[in-house]
């Protein structure tokens, strides 16, 4: 399976092989009262199906903006972007991706089960199908037994897991995650990273993951996209497949540290423009 994924991950070699995401010369300029802000400039990126790609960079580098462009929550001002051959809007209308926000963004008046059912209600799934999918996806994130709890009765980590179950409930091929564990403490974050990795290898989803944590990016990703601010652009793309069955201990190994070092170097190079 791993080999197959790697083949798809490098479509440029084969030419015809479809990319999950194909971004070319993408730019996004926000017009503000203080003049234009170049949030993204000339971004080129291809993501193959089944890849786990992390965007890393300092705040203001446009990593979240890039994710929001993929999700059709922002409209680019230049360049092209294709998601499974569709425009972001078409992809959104066809419900091809699940989005996980920085905060769980659960609706506080809905139980955990009802929160997971929210997209299914919007899409018009039958009641039986909704229940079945909610149960299945809550089991996937180890939240069985918490169906009838309200969000405030759960810890931050459990809430974020519920929001992942919600994003997975309608089985999108693509999962977009915007610093999902940024607000959680280190211990919870480690645990969720392991769970996410297992979930990814079980479900074979394509995951785009925004983070500002180097260990998190190296541990999770098959590729790391290092970004730099003003204007937001990609300064390095690092291949980083540490194997399917990696555990947290891998973070002590030389391979891990070598990649982490390269990411840090990239971030530092990007930062020198500031000073």
């Amino acid at each position: 399976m791993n080999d197959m994924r790697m083949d798809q991950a490098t479509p440029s070699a084969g030419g015809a092989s479809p990319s999950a995401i194909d971004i070319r010369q993408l730019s996004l300029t926000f017009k503000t009262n203080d003049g234009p802000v170049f949030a993204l400039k000339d971004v080129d990126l291809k993501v193959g199906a089944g890849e786990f790609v992390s965007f890393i960079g300092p705040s203001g580098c446009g990593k979240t903006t890039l994710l929001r462009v993929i999700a059709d929550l922002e409209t680019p001002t230049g360049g092209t972007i294709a998601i499974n051959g569709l425009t972001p809007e078409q992809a959104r209308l066809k419900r091809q991706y699940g989005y996980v926000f920085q905060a769980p963004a659960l609706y506080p008046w809905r139980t955990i089960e009802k929160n997971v059912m929210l997209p299914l209600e919007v899409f018009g799934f039958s009641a039986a199908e909704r229940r079945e999918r909610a149960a299945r996806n809550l089991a996937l994130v180890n939240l069985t037994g918490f169906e009838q709890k309200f969000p405030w009765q759960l810890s931050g980590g459990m809430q974020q897991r519920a929001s992942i179950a919600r994003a997975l409930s309608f089985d999108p091929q693509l999962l977009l995650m915007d610093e999902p564990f940024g607000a959680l403490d280190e211990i919870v974050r480690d645990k969720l990273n392991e769970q996410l990795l297992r979930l990814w290898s079980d479900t074979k989803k394509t995951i785009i993951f925004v983070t500002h944590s180097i260990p998190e990016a190296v541990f999770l990703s098959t590729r790391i996209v290092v970004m730099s601010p003003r204007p937001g652009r990609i300064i390095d793309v690092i291949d980083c497949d540490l194997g399917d069955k990696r555990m947290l201990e891998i973070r002590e190994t030389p391979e891990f540290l070598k990649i982490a070092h390269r990411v840090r170097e990239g971030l530092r190079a990007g930062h020198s423009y500031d000073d």
Partner: protein
Amino acid sequence: MSAASSANAGAPAGKDGSTIPVLVITALILAAWYAACLPMNSNLPQLHNAAGDLMARYQIAWALERPVLPAPHQILIELYNATVNTALFRQTSDGMVLNPRNLSFHAWVTLSATLLGFVIGSVLGIAIAVGIVHSRTLSKSLMPWVIVSQTIPILAIAPIIIVALGSIGLTGLVPKSIISAYLCFFPVTIGMVKGLTSPDTMQLDLMRTYNGSAAQTFWKLRWPAAMPFLFASLKVAITISLVGAIVGELPTGAQAGLGARLLSGSYFGQTIQIWAALFYAAMLAALLVVTITAAERATLRVMGARP
């Protein structure tokens, strides 16, 4: 005013240990009231010409027939006599009807106008808020009028509404309800605009990623998010709705209603009757607010609010 200020008294006391403070304040107010009865009434002939020591003078002041300021127990006795001690129904040629000598009859006349006005005003207020939240044009064109509407003194506009509607044959309940609605839609609109726009960007973006329709976003997100705001607004709305109904009874020389009792009491110098009507209105307002608070608690509990 008494209706509105009694709104807080309507909140259940005691659960959070507020019983004693409330009792202390009540005792202080009663003491000040009883003490004020003598100076307030001292210009009346009964007291002006009365000899005797302070206590004797106070006993006269607390038992006057038409005092400037009646003592609290006089008001309570009047309330008792005008409700419990008076037959609620009486026999007429049409069968049994409510007895106009009973104060509860007047309270019901006012209450029915209050409730109808409250329903009209709340529905209207919510409808305007929905329009304002969903349409930039409406938000720009309607909001200034909503605010201007409340700068007109209700005492000035109430007779106009009564006369205008009277000329097309609408009298009694409906004009009063419209005055109530005119007053009470405002807090509902303001509260619901705030409530319907209260979902944060992430909650709204989430609906966008699902390509949820405007109706789905409204019913699954905006409306439930607005519930706490709605109930806060309704508590204000119901009390001023009562004020509106009473004000609506003043300029017409209405024969029935708490407002009519206030007016006839002032014509004939029946201060105790005025105060009794005021007390009744205040109790009514408290009851209405308690009812809405109970509905609020039940609703928010179902919606998973922290206990």
